[in-house]
């Protein structure tokens, strides 16, 4: 069943891609779910403004002014930390939630496939080609010369991993 071959390959590819995108997705979701309060926004704005001002002051020539600006930035940062505490906790929860859902969906899909096609071979090869690993390759179908779903899954994963390492290096 050719479509199965391709389908499994695509699933593995999607899984890898999804894993890479997870941090981005969880950040997007936390932005939607957790509303940044206006005070936090204002604080961040002020800090950015002060940082830009700091760049314009010369440390050597106007040290007291520079130091005062730094002190303001420090105290605003401390305030921001106070606001951040509950937010940080929520965003960790979201991150774990997203990861959990992703992995669960993935595992359930694979399991369903394995169960559904436990008797049917994906591919039927001549017996001589798969000797002597015939039994392993055919698992769990038991049909000699068949390529079982599990074996094909492993093959796809290896190929995708290798491909990714070649591409990224």
């Amino acid at each position: 069943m050719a479509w199965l071959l391709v389908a499994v390959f695509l699933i593995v590819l999607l899984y890898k891609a999804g894993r890479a995108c997870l941090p981005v997705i969880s950040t997007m979701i936390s932005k939607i779910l957790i509303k940044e309060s206006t005070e936090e926004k204002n604080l961040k704005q002020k800090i950015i403004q002060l940082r830009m001002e700091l760049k314009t002051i010369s440390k050597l020539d106007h040290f007291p002014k520079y130091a005062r600006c730094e002190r303001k930035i420090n105290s605003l940062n401390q305030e921001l930390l106070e606001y951040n505490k509950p937010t940080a906790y929520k965003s960790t929860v979201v991150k774990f939630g997203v990861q959990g859902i992703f992995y669960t969906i993935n595992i359930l899909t694979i399991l369903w496939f394995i169960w559904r096609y436990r008797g049917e071979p994906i591919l039927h090869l001549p017996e001589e080609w798969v000797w002597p690993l015939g039994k392993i390759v055919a698992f769990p179908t038991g049909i000699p010369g068949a390529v079982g779903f599990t074996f094909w899954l492993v093959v796809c994963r290896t190929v995708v991993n290798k491909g990714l390492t070649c591409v990224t290096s």
Partner: protein
Amino acid sequence: MATAMEHDTLESSVQNILEQKTLRWIFVGGKGGVGKTTCSCSLAVQLSKIRESVLVISTDPAHNISDAFDQKFSKVPTKVKGFTNLFAMEIDPNVGMADLPDDYFEGQQDVLAVGKGVIQELLGAFPGIDEAMSYAEVMRLVQSMNFSVVIFDTAPTGHTLRLLSFPSMVEKGLGKLLKIKSQFAPFISQMAGVMGMQDMNAEQMTTRLEETLPIIKQVNEQFRNPDQTTFVCVCIAEFLSLYETERLVQELTKMNIDTHNIVVNQLMFLPKNEKPCKMCAARHRIQSKYLDQIEDLYEDFNVTKLPLLEHEVRGADDIRQFSEHLVKPYSV
């Protein structure tokens, strides 16, 4: 030049420290060579006049208090000659943990030496834990001896901040270490049995850790209480020193440790009736510039100005004399 807008500047002396009877811990710090030890000893002398008992501790491996008072001090509080209630002590933070295993391992068997080495390595891996244990011992000793006020002559800046952050850092570290201990204790005792040494060493150490943790927590709270703890920053009137002092002040503010005293040392006071030499005039000019910046930046601090004298300040008598400048502003 009186100005109508001039706000009340705080007095230029450490009288505020002397008056604050609730103070128990005073840290005197600043980057190297500014005269920390002279200042801390002078402050100790002034405090000894009005407080019941004063202890000055040096954590600098260079052991300057012995030089300052011209008397040998050890890691046990020793009375300073010529005083009835002033004590001094010098601790080397690096020696702390090494003492314990040495006591226990009498017969130098190689396997035991390896075990001791491993434990030391393990403890050494936690940042500052050897110092921390040493300070914890000091705290325990000091708490039990009940000095009215303790002055820490702290080692130069980076070290200082590590010392001050150690209570909270070590609290976390010790807490984790104790958790690990309870998980590994059976394993360690088995291994110890195999190697033929009793596991008492691990037990002993961790019991000490458990005993020390509440003291560290208590000390941590006291350090962040402005009624009980303050930090005196010593500097000189030069750019780098000013920069370091500001960094120190900002770090202390972040750690919620009170600081409201700056001591500017080694200042050139020009003689009134003579014309100063070119060098002195030039130095005075440079220092005036930075002194103005200091007074501008630290307008809500007490800024005490100490002179650079023609002689060195060494020995109890010189320190006694010098300490008067902390309370009464110096004039030529």
